[in-house]
């Protein structure tokens, strides 16, 4: 046998050991090649009369970590071929289940996705309980679902309720949890010889029948004619509603996985596997799933690993960071640094103010403690890493400074000058400004090459994105080190060249502007908000305006010398809303919404008098205006060099703006809609609503030359 990835041996007791050891890879990953080798090897063991039992094992630290998502993304065969491929896998796994020889999975570490599915097709599972050992079907987290029998075997082991919960939430279980649920049959400690335990089971007990191959088997909690017992009906009803509520029906894989489980529940396992394959094919071929895989697994993962870092710079590590300003942002930044094991000096004008910032961190950690996610000792250790200070002297030993004070240029400049007096020449100085151009702030610096923008998002501990803002004089080395830093604290950097509003604030502004414009045109405010959420935005443009505050929005607009005529109109509208109607935002309790104490916010009733509602509205147009406005502006960022690559726009829009992931992000959106349709619809919007929907020449060109293909990425 000429195997590259799967080792094979037979011991003196006649037990075959099939060991996964994928070449040139730190982990065992499933793809066409490794799967083919695996099944050939298993078949060899099945057909060899000398073999009494089979053990599936791993030579790596982990068992099998799942399928190759890149292969899925670039899958270029037909639906028929895809279905046949899945059914072939099912046939092989069924053959393994029914071969009459006991098969054991020796799960020595992670068994995720397809790795879990192979284990489920064994007659017995032993799992090592080392702390990072998890088993689970996690495909839903990347827009897919289990396609190698996982839905049907889970269903038959756990019943529909847990199956739906675990699969839709991509739940990973520890060995102990898996034992409790009956997903594994035995657990061992990391020191135990797991293969020896597997052999013992084969020799002493060795059953070779799956429960579902017993004639009297019934799917737990789901008898034939799905839902004939009370409770099951309600459960499926609730699952559908939850699946819809969390996705607005935008993610086909969720409905498809519910379908595979629902329809499969009344079938024999073989028909159930077939149903799963049918829905898997539909899912894999959906543009939404490809978008999710590309955006989350490829682009965001790459960015998180610092792939955008300029070449030729060694990795820089950071031991101590000085954060100036202990408000919400400063405290959040200190928090994520401490969590990443970096010492922090949190400086404000007084120690008590700095301590307030630490207080915020403590409050957040207390919430986690209440839910059992941390311990008193851990909280204490975390807070120990943060020194509250009011003295510049404490900053001298820091190897990175992050300024996070109020958005006031003079104040920021003063701090730059004062701080640079005490820090080392080699230290990078970053401002967390969200609005002021970095090159402008760098004028106050004596070392503008070391000056850079690190734009964190609020709340810092939850938001993954950091915009790394490159000023005119920022050096490449500074940029490289900044990327190292951002990835070290577990955030995702995108590189943005200096410009007003950088990337995310600028593009998000278009979303807000369009929402307010529609209100003034007489689109009912509830429609604007509801459509925004229905198309996948986390929050409506009017609610978010109230959060930002209309006065701040007006101030930012007023500072911008390059407003378009539409924006000038909008600025006037804002003045009227603020001054005539007295509506400013959440802080004052009076914005687009009312904010009654102890009650949920509700849209201010007077808008219908101020902007009388139109007789009807076009739902599709409302949604497209909100997204097209962002997409066209994001393209302009790309066109003018604010961004270097379309994938930065996709990553930034998904993580920073909550742009719907099923579209793939703000650039992928053009191909999601279809490039031709995008151009046609933009032209229609331009004719109806003006210049802002005109798409740049270069995009027109790209759309033309793409023909029927994609504009941005091959897949």
């Amino acid at each position, binding site marked *: 046998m000429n195997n590259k990835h799967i080792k094979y041996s037979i011991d003196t007791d006649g037990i075959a050991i099939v060991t996964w050891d994928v070449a040139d890879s730190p982990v065992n990953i499933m793809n066409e090649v490794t799967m083919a080798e695996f099944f050939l090897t298993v078949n060899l063991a099945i057909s060899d009369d000398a073999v009494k039992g089979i053990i599936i094992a791993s030579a790596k630290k982990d068992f099998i970590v799942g399928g190759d998502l890149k292969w899925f993304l670039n899958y270029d065969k037909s639906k028929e071929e895809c279905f046949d491929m899945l059914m072939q896998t099912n046939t092989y796994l069924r053959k393994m289940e029914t071969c009459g020889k006991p098969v054991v999975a020796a799960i020595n570490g992670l068994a995720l996705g397809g790795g879990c599915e192979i284990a489920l097709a064994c007659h017995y599972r032993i799992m090592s309980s080392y702390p990072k050992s998890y088993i689970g079907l996690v495909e839903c987290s990347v827009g897919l679902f289990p396609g190698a029998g996982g839905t049907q075997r889970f269903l038959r082991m756990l019943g529909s309720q847990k199956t739906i919960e675990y699969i839709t939430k991509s739940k990973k279980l520890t060995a102990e949890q898996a034992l409790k649920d009956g997903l594994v049959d035995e657990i061992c400690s990391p020191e135990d010889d797991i293969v020896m335990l597997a052999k013992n089971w084969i020799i002493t007990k060795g059953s070779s029948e799956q429960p579902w191959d017993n004639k009297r088997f019934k799917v737990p909690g789901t008898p034939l*004619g*799905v*839902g*004939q017992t*009370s409770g*099951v*009906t*309600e459960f*499926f*009803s*609730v699952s*559908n*509603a*939850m*699946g*819809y*509520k969390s996705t*607005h*029906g935008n993610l086909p894989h969720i*409905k498809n996985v*519910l*379908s595979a489980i*629902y329809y499969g529940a009344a079938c024999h396992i073989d028909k159930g596997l077939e149903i799963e394959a049918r829905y898997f094919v539909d899912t894999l071929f959906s543009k939404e799933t490809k978008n999710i895989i590309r955006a989350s697994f490829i682009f965001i993962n790459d960015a998180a690993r610092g792939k955008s870092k300029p070449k030729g710079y060694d990795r820089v590590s950071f031991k101590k960071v000085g954060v100036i300003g202990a408000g919400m942002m400063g405290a959040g930044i200190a928090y994520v640094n401490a969590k990443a094991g970096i010492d922090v000096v949190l400086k404000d004008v007084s120690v008590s103010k700095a301590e307030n910032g630490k207080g915020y961190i403590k409050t957040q950690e207390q919430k986690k403690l209440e839910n059992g996610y941390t311990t008193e000792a851990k909280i204490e250790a975390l807070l120990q890493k943060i020194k509250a200070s009011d003295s510049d002297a404490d900053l001298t030993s820091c190897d990175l400074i992050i300024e996070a004070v109020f958005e006031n240029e003079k104040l920021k400049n003063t701090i730059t000058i004062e701080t640079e007096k005490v820090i080392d020449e080699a230290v990078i100085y970053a401002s967390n400004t969200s609005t002021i151009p970095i090159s402008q702030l760098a004028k106050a610096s004596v070392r503008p090459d070391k000056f850079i923008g690190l734009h964190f998002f609020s709340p810092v501990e939850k938001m993954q994105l950091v915009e790394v803002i490159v000023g005119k004089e920022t050096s490449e080395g500074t940029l490289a080190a900044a990327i190292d830093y951002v990835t070290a604290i577990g955030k995702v950097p995108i590189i943005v060249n200096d410009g007003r509003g950088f990337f995310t604030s600028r593009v998000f502004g278009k979303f807000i502007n369009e929402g307010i414009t529609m209100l003034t045109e007489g689109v*009912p*405010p*509830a*429609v604007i*908000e*509801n*459509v925004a959420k*229905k198309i996948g935005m986390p929050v409506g443009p009017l609610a978010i305006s109230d959060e930002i505050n209309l006065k701040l929005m007006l101030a930012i607009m007023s500072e911008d010398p390059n407003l378009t005529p539409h924006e000038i109109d909008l600025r006037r509208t804002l003045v009227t809303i603020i001054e005539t109607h007295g509506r400013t935002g959440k802080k004052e309790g009076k914005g687009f919404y009312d904010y009654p104490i102890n009650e*949920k916010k*509700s*849209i201010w009733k007077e808008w219908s008098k101020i902007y009388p509602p139109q007789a009807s509205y076009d*739902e599709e147009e409302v949604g497209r205006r909100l997204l097209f406005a962002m997409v066209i502006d994001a393209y302009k960022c790309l066109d003018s060099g604010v961004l270097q690559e379309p994938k930065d726009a996709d990553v930034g829009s998904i993580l920073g703006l909550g742009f719907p992931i099923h579209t793939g992000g703000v650039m992928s959106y053009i191909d999601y809609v279809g490039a031709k349709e995008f151009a046609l619809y933009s032209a229609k919007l331009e004719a109806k609503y003006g210049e802002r929907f005109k798409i740049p020449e270069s995009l027109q060109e790209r759309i033309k030359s793409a023909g029927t293909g994609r504009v941005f990425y091959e897949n």
Partner: protein
Amino acid sequence: MEAYIYDSVRTPRGIGKGNGSLAPVSPVQLLTTLLTALKERNDLDTSLVEDLIVGCVTQVGEQGGNIAKVAAQCSNYGDHLSAVSLNRYCASGLEAINQAAAMIKSGWSELIIAGGVESMSRVPMGIDGSAWLMEPDAAFGHFVPQGISADLIATKYGYSRNDVDGFAVNSQKRAAFAQQNGFFDKSIIPVTDINGLVHLAKDEYIRANTTLEILSKLSPAFEKMGEQLFDQIAIDRYLEIEKINHIHHAGNSSGLVDGASLMLIGSKEVGEKLGLKPRAIIRMGAVLGSEPLIMLEGPIPATTKALRNAKMKASDIDVFEVNEAFAVVPMRVMDHFNIDHSIVNVNGGAIAMGHPLGATGCMILGTALDELERQNKSAALATLCVGGGMGIATIIERI
């Protein structure tokens, strides 16, 4: 040819829980009680009865299979009597009447007994499952429980909690008054045990002493499930609604009860042969589908259709019965057609007396007939909202 109602009977409505007075009585027994009564009080030659059409919603367990045929067999009407069970959700009982009338008007049959039955204590609502709720193709992004639909209608048209509670209190008062004055006695057949001793002789769900204040203390029944699960589906369809105002609760929605109702329907000729005097003519029946998410708006187009096909106007109707599935349903019908409350659900409705799903349609038509006779008026219309988005209406006129 015309179809005539020769008689109309119903059981009292028992509380639809395990300790309700009719809980020990099976739905087959409820039907045989009425079949026996029809036979006895009309001195009926049962050999002339051709078919038994029974509406029943939860057709599983002892209501499963074809419950109508089981009742026919237990009725001693004779082996010739065929029977069919049907399910048009809450319209089933009225659908049975309409189908019987259509059979007779077409000349296919001469004499039919039609109506409905539901024992909600013995066969709980929803236990039969349904693709409507479960199957992703049907349910995902589409299904919401009826209470959410009722609250959606209230929100859409601006009915307040106080409005619907006021309607509910009125329903109770009317039902109690009608009961005290014997308005239901003509049709109610007491349900008795094997010895002839009474299980239940009158509707037991009525709460005559209900007040606005008592109702105002009840929590909205669909608020939690709405906010956690279903409201989003409704809002994504009805985008102009910011938030659903949950105002329905057990006190202003129909009660779960047990009961059955039947009518003897036949041609003019068969009536003459039997020596029976027709009480009313079934003028028109109509049924149609409506938007399934808001679901309960069907009575309005169904009423319009029935009136149009009968060449009548709303103002030609003397008595309306609009099933009180939820208070907002009859309120919408009244407001849409501009009908005075004084001629709608004159003797209360399902909020006070309960809604035995499959039986209700026939039951409220019988109530309307009794009321026409009591007031010596001419025309009545009964209509119901129907699960999944349908509406049904039937118009009768006294001879």
